[in-house]
């Protein structure tokens, strides 16, 4: 299956400052991608570029096979975007606004009514149709923003911090909605809230100083999290079979020559056994590091590692 979103070597510079640096990834149908990163990491810039609000300095973006630069109309027709600040006209009612958005996306008359009522239903706005957007609370405005993004049934939905300003119940509803949307569409969502990623996403990317520092499926991530692991580097070639024979070892991943990630059961420590074995077999132990095992720690290590590189 071809990817719905394809981003290749995306770079964006603002003057001398490089906001997004050579980011590439692709997203298939039915995936929910969580975009994580500290403030100013380039999340919003990347999302704006995907949605054609900003032109990349270098790189290409393809939405459902259509190039964003060459065929912007076709690409944008496949796209629903909720920016950081929801683009709402306070002097229109919810119905008027959603009708306008449906027309902008080229929906035909009979389809508009259905799309608007469907969008309102999905976002819990059914009773709000006649209300002025300017009089709605922040949470409801956010919902109108989301409704606007999913209205025309786009194949790709990009949500920039969709749960900001919502109360905990609404947050749960929105996460539920995102999971539902993820079944039929591709969703990219950016957030600061780490548990949100675990709950609603199937893939996680961490971006830091414009660079993609982690791109992992949630299964891979939870594997990292639930089974803690050791990084071991040896001077001599080590026997994987013997390492696997150790008690509590789940799996061994070869990273480079003589460099292994040893996954083991959580709550046990096998560092001692590995060290002992290495000494006995004369593998020449160079490095033995226990790995972090929670999303917050992964996030912090990813984003702080790069800080020290600078």
């Amino acid at each position, binding site marked *: 299956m071809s990817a719905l979103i394809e981003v290749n070597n995306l770079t964006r510079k603002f003057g001398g400052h490089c906001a997004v640096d050579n980011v590439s990834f692709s997203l298939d149908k039915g995936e929910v991608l969580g975009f994580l990163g500290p403030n100013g990491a380039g999340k919003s810039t990347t999302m704006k570029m995907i949605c054609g*609000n900003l*032109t990349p300095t270098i790189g290409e973006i393809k939405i459902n096979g259509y190039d964003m630069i060459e065929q912007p109309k076709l690409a944008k027709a496949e796209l629903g975007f909720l920016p950081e600040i929801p*683009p709402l006209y306070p002097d229109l009612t919810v119905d008027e606004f959603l009708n306008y958005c449906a027309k902008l996306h080229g929906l035909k008359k009979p389809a508009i009514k259905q799309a608007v009522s469907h969008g309102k239903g999905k976002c819990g706005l059914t009773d709000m149709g006649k209300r002025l957007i300017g009089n709605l609370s922040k949470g409801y405005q956010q919902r109108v923003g989301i409704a606007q993004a999913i209205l025309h049934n786009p194949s790709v939905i990009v949500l920039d911090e969709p749960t900001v300003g919502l109360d905990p119940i609404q947050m749960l509803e929105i996460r539920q909605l995102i999971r539902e949307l993820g079944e039929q569409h591709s969703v990219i969502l950016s957030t600061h809230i780490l548990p949100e990623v675990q709950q609603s996403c199937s893939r996680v990317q961490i971006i830091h100083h414009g660079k993609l520092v982690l791109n992992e499926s949630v299964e891979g991530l939870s594997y990292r999290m639930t089974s803690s692991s050791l990084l071991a580097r040896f001077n001599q070639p080590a026997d994987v079979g013997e390492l696997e024979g150790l008690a509590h070892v789940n799996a061994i991943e070869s990273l480079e020559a003589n460099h292994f990630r040893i996954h083991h059961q959580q709550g046990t420590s096998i560092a001692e056994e590995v060290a002992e074995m290495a000494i006995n077999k004369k593998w020449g132990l160079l490095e033995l590091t226990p790995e972090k095992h929670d999303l917050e720690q992964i996030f912090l290590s990813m984003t702080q590692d790069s800080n020290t590189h600078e």
Partner: protein
Amino acid sequence: MNSLIIASRELRSLFLSPLAWTMLGVTQLILAYMFLTQVDYYLTIQPKLVGIPNAPGITDLVIAPLFANAAVILLLITPLLTMRVISDERRNKTISLLFSAPISISEIVLGKFLAIFSFLLIVLFSIALMPLSLLTIGELDLGKFSACLLALALLMAAFNALGLYMSSIASQPTVAAVGSFGALLLLWIIDWAGSNSGNSSNLLEYISIMRHFENLLRGLIHSTDIIYFVLFIAGFLILSIRRLDNDRLQK
């Protein structure tokens, strides 16, 4: 088609604010007063005109001055109408709704232009009603009258295009209003230099909006003047498109 969607939304928002209604009311009130004084003046000099061969008629003495006055009022109100069309969208970040919809930048600009132009056509219509009321008591030179209508419509479109451009470069609506008012006034009076001593520059005369507008008001439909207005409108619309396109390229 897409432009019409944007235009109808824009026009709707315009009429939801008191600004549009106030403008319609104030313009109509002032012009009606001017129209009455003009009619009054015509009635006082009418007996003298009878003796003069080829004397100017009511169209020259009432309608043309009315439309000239209307132009001055438009000079004041158009910047207020156009100031927020693009700069407000940019400030409120609603512009991203348009940028991420399958619409081209030219359609966005054209939509904004059409919205303000339709409002100005409503103004034009209510101005035109005053001379038309004279039809009940006499005759009008309908040829000259349509020339006046054309002149004012072109002038409106030109003011509108320039105001739109100013709105697209300014970050705040008030800055856009001041900018377009200044630019329009300058273009209005630019041929004053040297016009008293009789050695005015041809170039400045060509640039001046007033020259072309006055030619049309006199009933002289000259292609030079029409081309001037068309170029003016198209030029500023293209500049606005370029400017808005630049938003996506920024820095």
